[in-house]
């Protein structure tokens, strides 16, 4: 039996990081998850579709990469994955962090700032609305995820903002 060489991958889905090792042989892949192993026959269909045969089950997977993330859809259900790469690890982690940080209020989507409800130096409480951003005709209230002090207001009503853009910088306030 030929020895096969594998490659280890790490993907995050939401907040969770998953790891697997993939071994490839002609017409066959083996995926290892710790002590569990999956044997997979892969039939490429198109740029956005592969057909997997796993244990006699046929699974059609639709996939696309967009903005550095992998969108994977099976049975009409979509999952968004980010690959954690050794070199790019820090960057990805930092970006993920930016969305969760307690010390900056960032816009979770592209949109237009409707209203900023705080000023520099204000102390804000957890769940207090700091700003309102409109996207696709919906107003979205952006709330503080913890008690904090406003360090700097980085956007004004009417500004167009990108996803991930900092709107209000915060600093710890005990």
């Amino acid at each position, binding site marked *: 039996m030929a020895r096969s060489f594998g490659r280890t991958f790490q993907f995050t889905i939401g907040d969770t990081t998953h790891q697997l090792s993939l071994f490839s042989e002609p017409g066959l892949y083996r995926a290892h998850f710790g002590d569990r*192993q999956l044997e997979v026959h892969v039939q490429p269909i198109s740029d956005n579709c592969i057909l997997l045969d796993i244990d006699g089950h046929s699974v059609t997977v639709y996939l*696309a990469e967009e903005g550095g993330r992998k969108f994977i859809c099976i049975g009409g259900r979509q999952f968004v994955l980010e690959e954690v790469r050794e070199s790019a690890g820090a960057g990805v982690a930092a970006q993920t962090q930016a969305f969760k940080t307690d010390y900056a209020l960032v816009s979770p989507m592209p949109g237009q700032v409707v209203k900023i409800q705080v000023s520099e130096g204000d102390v804000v409480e957890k769940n207090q609305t700091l700003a309102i951003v409109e996207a696709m005709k919906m107003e979205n209230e952006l709330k503080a995820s913890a008690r904090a002090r406003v360090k700097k207001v980085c956007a004004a009503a009417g500004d167009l903002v990108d996803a991930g853009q900092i709107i209000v910088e915060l600093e710890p306030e005990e």
Partner: protein
Amino acid sequence: MDLRKVLVANRGEIAVRVIRACRELGISTVAVYSEADRESLHVQMADHALCIGPPAPLESYLNIEAIVDAAKKSAAQAIHPGYGFLSENTSFAKRCEEEDLVFIGPTSNALALVGDKVASRVTMSKAGIPIIPGMKSKGTDPALFAAEAKKIGYPVLIKASAGGGGKGMVVINSPRELKEAVEASMRVAGGAFGDESVYLEKYLPAPRHVEFQVLADTHGNAVHLFERECSIQRRHQKVVEETPSVALDDRLRTKMGATAVEAIKAAGYTNAGTVEFLLDDDGRFYFLEVNARLQVEHPITELTTGVDLVRQQIAVARGEKLSFSQKDVRRSGHAIECRIYAEDPAKGFMPSSGRVAFLREPGGPGVRHDCGIYSGCQVPVHYDPILSKVIVWGEDREAARKRMLSALSETVILGIQTSIGFLQDVIAHAEFIAGNTHTDFIDKYMMPWKEEADKELLQVILTAAAVDAQGKAGQPGRSSSSSVRQVTPWQTGGGWRVGGQ
């Protein structure tokens, strides 16, 4: 009256819907588009296309001057407004009348009456049709709202007088929230409808939302085309609609249908419209409003009655008499519509925009997909997040429900967040199966929600991702075996060596 060219003053799936109807009638079409929509599907499908301004709705799809100008430039004889945007805008309808452009909808007078939610509440109340307790005049002064709220008791609901589609609607549970909510509602109403006046009524926490489709010609004939049950809502916007409603028996259906026709006649309303009712579990119903436009959910009526509503709209606009009367209207089977929004149901239905990297549409018997997107298109941030509608017909509710599940499972929209997975869970929910569809359905049964993969599915997802990542560096050869694929059962452990160890 002979109509040869129609301008469609809308975008997305509804513009596509209207363009198709016109094409079938031999009417040529003019699309208008904002600068953000140069590559949009409706632009591709029309016979002529004109850019009417920058992305902001007020400067393009709500810009009456630009649209009238486009109609004149392109020699269009009529304008179909779709839903949203200018569809219920009295000034626009009036302007069309003045410019001798046929507005495919009610007259500006009828629109003014029913389009003013407060005025129509008063009218219906006078006609003996029950309305929800609340203000019978609109306003902007928060004190006025506070007084009325105090009188009828919290919770109350703020609504845009010119509104629709849930825009500007805010529930208020206590006096503390009132001022901010009134302001927010006014802001949204002003932006969306060009009219920031709002009003307040009693908030019924969990009614059903049942509406009747009506059609009225300009010769005094009016019919209803039965009801649509639209109770499944998020952010006061409908998500799932079905017909018939499980909540109506034939007696109640007949009574509500007759009331709907009475209401429409009382208002002197012509063309297609919808009379919305709130219905409680004791069979009491309250007039809510008239939607003076083609509704997003009109296809479920089309699938069960066989009446093409856009075609009827055009016939009425041409001055034709309705070709059928109430007794000719039959319905058969059951239809369900699911709206596919660009949004993330796991994050409070936050809108999502960006590029649709890949689209696969559902198909097969009894499945209709009214779609405004295509593989590779951009979903702009400026407009309603509705991407498409999956609509199914089945012999009965259960057949339709299963067909919807199947259709959703074959719908693929990659690259942005959508509500497809969430909708599958709604349609598969035991309470939905049981017909317990009330307006609080989503809050009560669906929240919080997240797309969850069990361990096996998760492993398949990760494997696919890894195979794809690997593939970018060079795929292994295709299987060359010609025999039945031999796959061993799920294995644990085994003698495989990790490379490098």
